[in-house]
């Protein structure tokens, strides 16, 4: 016997969560784009997709985020920290790869200095993930040792029922349990068969690739130039990545008042590492692509014990020149002995 949430009761759940003080955020489609937005009803949700184009990262590490408001007076500067709001949020219909992305980034935002902007949002959010029953040719979660029902980063996992009536609900964390408590009357105790999970073929041997990457002799390999030759240096792979976390800090305003903001930045951009002297440690696109791959599959693991990739495949899916992590790691797997 397990708990079942029926499609028909989803709207009741949303109401219950809202009256419990949660905002409900789910994939929704507007203006020809699917992203995570606040939804009023189940009808607004786009749960049928393999994956929304944008990630839930947007709601934890927004593309532009005010940090500090400043006001300059004579001999005095007033500052006001602009922390994110305290409101509680339910993320409904997240995919396991997006949820895992949050978990992967936690140590980065937490090491040494604990980033309040990230953690405040993390602590106020409950992630309700739906296990994947379909995949597209770009999905690669299984290649990075995750999978279509991986619980990493999720508070509640929903397994779609075979007959399509709803989902089987499995709570994974205390936060998930607390959320479930608010909707117990809307759930059924039932035995139901869950749909089979998406079959996501393994595309590369990540262990083998990591060994190759860890070998210093390969750092200056011609491979990097070959593989990144067509890279145009846009930042779409990094901006749509559920784990990429690099940012820039910019002041907007004038000499009297304004706001210091944290904006997404990308290792793909030439200006990212440019010194004021004009010296640029990563001055070619191949170095920048190498940095991205090394960071995800070598450096990050060395520091935080986990690869900075959750296998969503957006980098390839959205790439204007059909590059991406999959191809690079496949090539590495093929060349590595």
């Amino acid at each position, binding site marked *: 016997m397990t708990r079942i949430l029926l499609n028909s009761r989803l709207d009741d759940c949303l109401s219950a969560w809202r009256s419990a003080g949660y905002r409900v955020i789910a994939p929704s489609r507007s203006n020809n784009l699917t992203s995570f937005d606040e939804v009023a009803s189940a009808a607004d949700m786009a749960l049928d997709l393999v994956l929304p184009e944008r990630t839930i990262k947007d709601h934890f590490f927004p593309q*532009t985020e005010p940090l500090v408001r400043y006001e300059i007076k004579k001999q005095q500067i007033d500052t006001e920290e*602009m922390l994110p709001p305290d409101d509680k949020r339910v993320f409904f219909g997240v995919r396991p790869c997006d949820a895992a992305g949050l978990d992967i980034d936690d140590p980065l935002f937490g090491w040494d200095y604990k980033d309040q902007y990230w953690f405040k949002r993390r602590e106020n959010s409950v992630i309700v993930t739906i296990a994947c029953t379909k995949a597209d040719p770009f999905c690669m979660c299984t290649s990075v040792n995750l999978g279509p029902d991986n619980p990493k980063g999720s508070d509640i996992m929903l397994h779609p029922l075979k007959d399509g009536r709803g989902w089987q609900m499995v709570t994974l964390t205390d936060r998930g349990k607390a959320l479930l408590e608010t909707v117990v009357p809307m759930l059924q105790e039932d035995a139901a068969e869950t749909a089979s999970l998406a079959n996501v073929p393994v595309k590369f041997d990540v262990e083998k690739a990591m060994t190759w990457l860890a070998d210093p002799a390969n750092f200056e390999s011609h491979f990097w130039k070959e593989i990144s030759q067509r890279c145009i240096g846009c930042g779409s792979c990094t901006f749509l990545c559920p784990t990429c976390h690099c940012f820039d800090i910019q002041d907007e305003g004038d000499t009297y008042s304004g706001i210091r903001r944290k904006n997404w930045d990308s290792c793909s951009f030439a200006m990212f590492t440019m010194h004021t002297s004009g010296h640029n440690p990563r001055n070619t696109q191949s170095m920048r692509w190498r940095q991205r791959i090394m960071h995800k599959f070598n450096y990050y693991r060395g520091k935080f014990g986990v690869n900075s990739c959750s296998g969503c495949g957006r980098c390839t899916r959205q790439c204007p020149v059909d590059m991406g992590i999959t191809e690079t790691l496949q090539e590495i797997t093929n060349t590595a002995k």
Partner: protein
Amino acid sequence: MSEPFEPKIVAFVCTYCTYAGADLAGTSRMKYAPNVRIVRLPCTGRISPMFILKALQKGADGVLVSGCHPGDCHFAQGNYHARRRWTVFRALLSFTGIPEERIKFSWISAAEGAKFAELINGITDEIRALGPFEQYQELQKVIETQSTY
């Protein structure tokens, strides 16, 4: 009842003609609306469309760009180039929903003090009637608050 709306208008003018024209309006003691902030530039050819965007960003309700009549440019061709640029830029602004009525262009020579005064009064009335450019200013207000995320 709140104060009547007074529009903020930024005028980018060339120093040889329109600025001199404005000067003439002043020295002739012609009265014109105080809503306009004049920015003087060497030539209309120097007036980058970026200036117009900056003015809007900083809360202008209307923008005026003005220089020498065709054929009178101190640098011979600056205003001809500017004219093409304005034609295109104006179309672009219009297509993105920035009303043509808020972005004005004119030729005012050094002798046309009266035209300057009249034009400023006319534009001010027109933009006052349009009201503040709230749609654009709203964008600035939004970024000053913490995101709802």
